């Protein structure tokens, strides 16, 4: 008969850290996040309803402003460079909702564990602690991609949305956006775990994105100082490049300036996210706030 593991003298642990073991741990964090997501079925309603509700207010306002005969569209073309105000608003609001989702889901990932009471039991293990934050992101990327597809389908169906897209450019914009959006989420997660309350910060960040990044209007309508500030916010670049790729079929070469800047912002925010997390981890360990909520 094969001996049981309990029969082996308890002098040596079965725990052995290797790169493969770390990768398996990361995969399990991703799986845990996915299991929790699908076991709370109310997300289906949010995924179907939210994409169309939020942009609809702007779209209907835009229809009213363009006049019953659409005569205002010429003015819109002059300032925004396109008459497709529907696509213009959908791209802007999608990026805003993406950033918003990251703030709530990635930004609150550690806080959620803290409130659930499981953060300490995770941190008692020898797994690299940043994996617990990184592991949340792949599921959120998948959810957001589904969200984007649902949005586009709904707007095509209910509002007759049409794109003139360069798919390769669009894919590059999405990929270049990930580092900075998630890097901001990591910084946010670290702040949330330290402050233990972050409703105000969420409002501030999404308010900044809403006002400065031109989610429903061109940046040119803002004062110069606001336009300069907006250039430092990654969502501004994502929206601008996204609109060019989706509405005017801009080739990758036409977007390379914004894509390069996005990658630089991404490197900055990922490094800042990691440093903020390391600082928060040390601070929580000194103050004993890891398990407090």
């Amino acid at each position, binding site marked *: 008969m094969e001996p049981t593991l309990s029969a082996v003298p308890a002098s040596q642990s079965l725990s052995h850290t290797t790169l493969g073991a770390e990768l398996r741990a990361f995969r399990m964090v991703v799986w845990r996040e996915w299991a929790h997501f699908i076991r709370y079925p109310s997300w289906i309603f949010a995924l179907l309803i939210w994409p169309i509700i939020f942009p609809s207010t702007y779209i209907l306002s835009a229809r009213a402003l363009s006049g019953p005969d659409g005569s205002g569209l010429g003015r819109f073309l002059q300032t925004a460079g396109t008459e497709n105000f529907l696509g213009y608003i959908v791209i802007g609001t999608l990026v805003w909702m993406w950033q918003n989702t990251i703030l709530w889901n990635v930004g609150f990932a550690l806080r959620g564990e803290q409130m659930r009471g499981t953060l300490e039991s995770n941190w008692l*293990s020898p797994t690299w602690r940043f994996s617990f934050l990184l592991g949340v992101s792949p599921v959120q990327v998948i959810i957001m991609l589904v969200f984007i597809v649902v949005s586009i389908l709904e707007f095509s169906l209910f509002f007759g949305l049409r794109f003139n897209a360069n798919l390769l450019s669009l894919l590059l914009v999405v990929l270049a956006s990930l580092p900075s959006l998630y890097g901001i989420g990591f910084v946010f997660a670290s702040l949330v775990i330290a402050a233990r309350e972050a409703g105000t910060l969420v409002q501030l960040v999404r308010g900044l994105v809403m006002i400065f990044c031109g989610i429903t209007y061109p940046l040119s309508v803002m004062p110069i100082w606001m336009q300069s500030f907006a250039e430092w916010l990654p969502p501004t670049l994502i929206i601008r490049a996204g609109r060019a790729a989706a509405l005017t079929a801009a080739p990758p070469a036409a977007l390379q300036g914004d894509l390069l800047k996005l990658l630089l912002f991404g490197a900055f925010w990922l490094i800042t996210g990691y440093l903020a997390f390391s600082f928060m981890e040390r601070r929580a360990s000194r103050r004993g706030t890891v398990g407090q909520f």
Partner: protein
Amino acid sequence: MTPTYAIEADNLIKKFPSRQQPDKTGAPKKKFSLPNPFKRTPPTLFTAVDGVSLQIHPGEIFGLLGPNGAGKSTTIRMLCTLLEPTSGVARVNGYDTVRNANLVRQNLGTVLAGERSIYWKLTGRENLEYFAALYHIPPAIARKRIDELLERMEITARANELVERYSTGMRQRIAISRALLARPPILLLDEPTLGLDPQAARNLRELILSLKTEGHTILLTTHYMEEADQLSDRIGIIDQGKIIALDTPAVLKNRINQQDVLRLEVAGWKPEIGEKIQSMPEVGSLVTRYMGSESLWELTLHTPNSRALLPKLIEQVNFNGTHVANLNVVKPSLEDVFIQLTGKALRD
């Protein structure tokens, strides 16, 4: 090389910043004053653990006994790397808890107080699979170990149900299985029987004893004196962050063998009677506890001579509607040791 001690702490101190309330500063209170929301009182330091030193031998069950807030959990949190000491050094299986934190985590299984250390939206088996990966246990070994633990904890039949449908006792067994997954040589159990029904608590105590026979070193915190007495090879009594006594349960209880311990139940209790009893020269220490009905109180008295004290004591108590409902001379327990050392009960 096997270290001499499984756990070693040398002068561990943990201080937390805290903000003192304005009305506790001793300043005279104004009659009508509105609180100033912008005024921040300067931070002060609260010492939760104050110079704890201990050495725990491999294979030993060491009990850390003390009332709530004594510093037991803070000590455990420093040993399991969740909390960095303000000063002092701790080693687990020879590894420094700050400098070699990951090696410490590989050698430790920890169960912290409370039942929410596992995921309620995962099944019992999924929880163990998840944590086995976090503890870097190779998958084939993990599968075998999980089956073995589920069997041992008698959860196999319900292993594929969500934890939210489990009883408190079952959740605690999954939490303990989580700590045992890596078969760590050292286990830290913080109030492991807290909130369990008597049967579940008894089963858990049996499990702890069987883990000792398998060679695990166990550091157990509890404020249940019977539990500490039954399980521990040695006990450290902790109060206000300091270890005030450390020895085997028998030696600790022998310390007060020169004292008689009287336990009285008194009906119609009045606080002034306590003051009178306390002032009697034969009374070493007195602890009172409300028993929950019709002013019935329990008194625990330490005295060097119960024969001399009893007549005077009964005379003091049986007065003005108060009377002795029950009286026993009892064998000293660890709680009596604690009373003698601190002048208060463990449950205070």
